[in-house]
Each structure stands twice: as structure tokens, then as C-alpha cells.
């Protein structure tokens, strides 16, 4: 999807299909969401197969749906790709579990991922980022979106405890999960593609944990931590370890690359913003927040209404699926004035919902923020300017807003610090 929308247009919302993959692969959903926020903040849609869902697009409604588990439960699934099929991992997989069990499991895991805890990784991540950018320094065409797909693996691999040789396959499998109908990945049917990639990822983590346990290994890795925590006094089962490990892999792999490439695209379109950040590196943390708001890589999450509920001027029936469009909420003018202006000095950029809200707020956010900050510090220090070197291409997914190709050339600074 285009992150810088085309001209505002008057859209007739009748018959609009928010699950139309072309809208995200080659289209421009922002003007559509603009109209929805203004005129249909609760938008009901019935798919051709009869499944139905309600969309909220305003910032406050997105926040409410994602935060309040009493009104909107996660226990029937949270990814709209699975709309209408109850999540078989409910109550086991952390993202599909409501408090209080959720809190019990999340707390010990989160302790390894606080801003303070991840700080020890900063210099290692910096060295990784420097190596990552090296091939672009000789002025050859560098496809940032393609390369960035490997970045989370390079950064989080050692932290998770996953050997380098396995990463390429794991990155491919997580990409399959996010775009199962993409011709690059499709095996038989979309359902089969999803099941194959889920199966491989789950058994990878489960076997990692079993081998690790059998060998009596102890280390500082996050996966080891998963095998040793005792939420509520009991260790996690193999199934819980597999599911939460899978969830962490997915969270790291499928979002960060798109925030990197989407933010770089925005900076290439606005060389004055690039120059401003390069001249004053203290602006980088806010540049990162604006980039997170702008790209909103996790475009939405889903919840189910527990009881009949009034929201956004309408009513969702008990059991109704509600999709909270984070990408739209992050462009809500009542919270972000001139929302379609990319401004690295924006006040309050950090209020964005790119990491979600409430109990399921992204557990990896401190690590993602640090990685993005280091990435842009090093990028700005090394390149005087960046130029597009071909048409960007977008991911055909209504769940993950992302780029698949972003060819560019960089002009190296004469003096690197």
C-alpha cells in the first residue's frame, strides 16, 4: 500500500472490500480510511463466503478495542486472516490469551525485553547494522526492502539463541505465514500453505527446546528463558513454548523490516527531512517514532466482542469480529494534525499505536525501538543522500503493511565519523 496517499478522493463506501489484496498490493487505502473515520467509523462488511466483521478506524476506537479484554477478547484469535475460525491455540498462545493467564506468562518474558535489559545488545546490534549497510556504500543498487527481511534475524538470532544456519529457512517460513496466497509461497491452497508454515515453525521451536533441555544447556537466550520460566509455579508445556517462540519469531521477522524500508522511502521522498536528521542526530528517536506511526507495519489486529457493545456510534453484536485498523488510527487528525505529513519533529508522534495498546502491547517494542534508532544513526552517518533506483513494490497483505522491493542507491559521505 502507498504510505504517502494520492490525492484525497470522495469514496463511495458501498461495496468497499477491506480484504481486497489489490488495495494493499498496488492500491491506496489511506483515502478510503480517511472517509471511514469521517463518515463510517464503524464499518460493517460481509465477505462473499458469508463471514462478517466490523472495522474501527479512529484512533480512540482502535485503542479501546485493543486494550479492553473484558469487552473485546483475544481468545478466539487476533489475526484477521483467520476470521471466523476460532483460534485452536486460544488460552495457550500468549497473543490469544486474555488476562489473568496472559499477565502471568507475559511478565517473566517481558523482564528479558525491557529497555534496560536489551541495552546490553546495543553495540552488537550496531556492528550488525554497519555490516548490513556496507554493500550499499559502493554506490551499487541496493534493494533495501529485500535485504531488510534478513535484518531481524541478524539482530535477534543471537538473542533468541537460534543458530545462523537456520535463519534463512525461518525467515522464509514467517514470510509464508504473512502472505500465504502470494504466488511466491503458495503450496496447494492458502490453508495448506498456512498449515505447512505454522507446522514447520512450531516443530522447529519445540525441537529446539527438547534438544536444549535434553543436553541440560543453560544460556542467556530468550528461548532458553522460555523453557525455564514458571508462570503460576508451573513450567510452560512444550506446546506453549512452541507457540510463544513462534509468536516471538513472527513478531520480530515480519514487522521491523517494513518499518525500516517504509521510513527510508519516506525520507527519500523528502530529502529536506533526511538532511535535518543528519544534521541533528538527537532527532533520531523521534524520527523512529514518526516512522513507526507512518509505516504501521502491523496494519490491524482483530478481537471478538464478548457481549453486544456500543462503539464508534454503532452496535456490534455479541460474538462479532472487530478489526482495529492501526494503520488508520495512526493517521487520525484528531491525534496527529496533518496526519499524512511525514514530520520527524512531530510533537506526540510517540502516541502512535504501531505496537498496539493495552495488555498485548508489543513485547519486543524496546528492542525494535533500539534497533531502529541504531539503524538510522548509522544510515544518516554514512550516507549523504539516498536516491530511488526503481519502482517500490508492496506486499499483498491486508494484515502486514509492507514493501517487498525498494531499490535505491546511496551517496557515501566523504567523511565518515
Amino acid at each position, binding site marked *: 500500500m502507498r504510505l504517502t496517499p494520492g490525492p484525497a478522493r470522495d469514496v463511495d463506501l458501498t461495496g468497499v472490500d477491506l480484504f481486497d489484496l489489490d488495495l494493499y498490493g498496488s492500491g491506496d487505502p489511506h483515502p478510503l480510511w480517511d472517509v471511514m473515520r469521517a463518515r463510517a467509523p464503524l464499518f460493517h462488511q460481509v465477505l462473499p463466503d458469508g463471514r462478517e466483521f466490523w472495522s474501527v478506524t479512529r484512533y480512540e476506537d482502535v485503542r479501546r478495542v485493543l486494550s479492553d479484554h473484558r469487552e473485546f477478547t483475544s481468545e478466539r484469535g487476533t489475526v484477521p486472516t483467520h476470521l471466523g475460525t476460532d483460534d*485452536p*491455540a486460544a488460552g495457550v498462545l500468549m497473543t490469544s490469551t486474555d488476562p489473568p493467564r496472559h499477565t502471568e506468562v507475559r511478565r517473566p518474558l517481558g523482564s528479558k525485553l525491557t529497555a534496560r535489559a536489551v541495552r546490553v545488545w546495543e553495540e552488537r546490534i550496531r556492528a550488525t547494522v554497519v555490516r548490513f549497510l556496507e554493500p550499499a556504500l559502493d554506490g551499487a543498487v541496493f534493494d533495501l526492502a529485500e535485504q531488510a527481511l534478513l535484518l531481524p534475524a541478524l539482530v535477534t538470532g543471537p538473542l533468541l539463541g537460534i543458530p545462523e544456519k537456520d535463519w534463512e529457512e525461518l525467515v522464509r517460513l514467517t514470510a509464508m505465514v504473512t502472505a500465504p496466497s502470494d504466488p511466491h509461497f503458495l*503450496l*496447494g*491452497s492458502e*490453508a*495448506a500453505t*498456512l*498449515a*505447512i508454515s*505454522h*507446522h*514447520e515453525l*512450531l*516443530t522447529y521451536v519445540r525441537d529446539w527446546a527438547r534438544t536444549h533441555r535434553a543436553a541440560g544447556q543453560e544460556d542467556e537466550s530468550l528461548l532458553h528463558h522460555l523453557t525455564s520460566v514458571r508462570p503460576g509455579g508451573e513450567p510452560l508445556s512444550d*506446546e506453549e513454548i512452541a507457540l510463544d517462540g513462534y509468536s516471538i519469531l513472527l513478531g520480530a521477522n515480519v514487522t521491523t523490516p517494513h518499518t525500516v524500508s517504509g521510513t527510508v522511502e519516506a525520507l527519500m521522498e523528502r530529502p529536506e527531512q533526511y538532511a535535518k536528521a543528519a544534521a541533528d542526530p538527537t532527532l533520531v528517536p523521534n524520527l523512529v517514532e514518526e516512522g513507526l506511526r507512518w509505516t504501521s507495519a502491523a496494519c490491524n489486529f482483530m478481537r471478538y466482542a464478548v457481549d453486544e457493545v456500543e462503539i464508534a456510534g454503532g452496535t456490534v453484536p455479541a460474538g462479532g469480529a472487530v478489526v482495529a485498523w492501526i494503520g488508520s488510527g495512526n493517521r487520525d487528525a484528531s491525534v496527529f494534525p496533518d496526519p499524512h505529513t511525514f514530520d520527524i519533529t512531530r510533537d506526540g508522534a510517540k502516541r502512535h499505536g504501531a505496537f498496539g495498546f493495552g495488555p498485548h502491547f508489543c513485547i519486543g517494542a524496546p528492542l525494535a525501538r533500539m534497533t531502529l534508532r541504531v539503524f538510522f544513526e548509522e544510515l544518516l552517518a554514512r550516507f549523504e543522500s539516498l536516491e530511488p533506483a526503481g519502482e517500490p513494490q508492496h506486499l499483498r497483505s491486508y494484515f502486514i503493511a509492507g514493501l517487498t522491493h525498494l531499490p535505491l542507491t546511496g551517496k557515501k559521505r566523504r567523511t565518515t565519523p
Partner: protein
Amino acid sequence: MGSLGQEIAELWGEHLGREVGVEDDFFTIGGNSLSGIKIIEQVTEQYGVTLSVRDFYLAQTPARVAELIEQGRTGA
């Protein structure tokens, strides 16, 4: 062969908590990766054949999974 298909259908039935026919489609009757992991493990235990993950999900019916097991047994 027919009876092996029937056995596989029963095995699926235990994991999916419903009656399964030999030509039923795995995904239509509520199969997913969590039940798939358990079913493939049990096939290995009971029949001594390790099914490829990909082949299993693409086979999609008990009858065709039975064929995979036959092939695995004859080493084809």
C-alpha cells in the same frame, strides 16, 4: 488399502473430535497445524512411517494420506 484409509480417518476423528470419512478434506473439517503435528507424530509411532509435513497437508484426505503411508512402507 481401504482399511488403512479407514484407520487414518478414525485417527483424524480422535484429534478433531468428530466423525471423519476417507474422502473428507482436512481443512474443511477443522484440521490445522496443531492437530496436524499430533496426527503426524502418531502415524510415525503406529505405522513406523515419517510423513513429510508438506506431503501430509497437500494430501488433505485420509485416503491420500493412507497412500503416502503405503508408499513409505514400500520405500517408494
